């Protein structure tokens, strides 16, 4: 397979299942073993995937549960990589509010009760996105398609789309787990720098998150475009 075999396009309805899996797998990453979308809510991977899949047709904007925000890399007419992007709080609603609303409607009720019992862990993990800043989330590449720079191509395509539509964005943020050193180094090479970091020393943290802390990374769009075009 060569880079010419990949097509980048917006996500469509037939991608919903791929995107639901990608959101969970991107969260788990290469170093983790659990997804916070499932474990933190006391539900299985399949339950979380099915709930996210059911959310997709709602097309609620402003968080990773909207297929509208995804670009997909396709290989032989199948989605193999994706990344989500939105402007935080663009219409006055934060991503966590959009996410919470969807979870309230689509996660099992017991899941929302369960997560409240783990709030002491979640509070120590959370980093906060910046209003008005372009957010990247749920970056995923199928294993056999890694090493082709698909995430940087997808990021660049997202940025080009936002700039073309004259959205007032100059910075980009993304989050990853502090344990995922490979991802952090890759993002640093692309032009990102860590701006906030958390660490949770609770011995149970790895039962509910795929890492023991989170990092918020930021890049200037112009620097990023230079970094990822090299």
């Amino acid at each position, binding site marked *: 397979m060569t880079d010419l075999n990949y097509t980048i396009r917006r996500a469509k309805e037939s991608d919903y299942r791929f995107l639901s899996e990608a959101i969970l797998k991107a969260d788990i990453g290469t170093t983790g073993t659990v997804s916070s979308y499932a474990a933190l809510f006391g539900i299985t991977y399949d339950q979380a995937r099915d709930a996210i899949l059911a959310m997709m047709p709602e097309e609620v904007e402003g968080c990773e549960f909207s297929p509208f925000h995804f670009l997909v890399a396709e290989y032989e007419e199948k989605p193999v990589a994706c990344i989500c992007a939105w402007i935080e709080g663009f219409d006055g609603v934060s991503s966590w*509010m959009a996410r919470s609303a969807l979870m309230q409607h689509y996660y099992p009720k017991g899941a929302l009760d369960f997560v409240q019992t783990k709030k002491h862990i979640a509070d120590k993990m959370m980093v906060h996105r910046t209003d008005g800043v372009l957010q990247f989330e749920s970056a995923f590449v199928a294993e056999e398609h890694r090493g082709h720079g698909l995430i940087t191509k997808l990021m660049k395509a997202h940025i080009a789309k936002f700039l073309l539509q004259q959205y007032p964005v100059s910075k980009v943020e993304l989050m990853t787990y502090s344990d995922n050193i490979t991802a952090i180094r890759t993002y640093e090479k692309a032009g990102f720098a860590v701006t906030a970091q958390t660490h949770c020393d609770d011995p149970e943290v790895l039962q509910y998150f795929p890492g023991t802390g989170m990092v918020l990374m930021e890049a200037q769009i112009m620097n990023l475009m230079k970094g990822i075009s090299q």
Partner: protein
Amino acid sequence: MNNEEITNKVQDILRAVFQAPELVVRPEMTANDVDKWDSLTHLTMIAKVEEVFGFRFKLKEMVKMKNVGDMLTIINEKMNG
């Protein structure tokens, strides 16, 4: 139920959920104005409002609530509409 009664009930809920006994509800108030208002306490707050007022928010209502004033307007419409 009039506006004042709705506002007072919402204020009681917010004070309890966010552990802020001195909190005074203002229509322009957002999560940024309240220390303990985060994604998880937000879920608790919404569930409590639904329980106290006896209805469920629609998804499209929840994703349009930019501040407390928006929530008060929706509650008012549901209680008096």
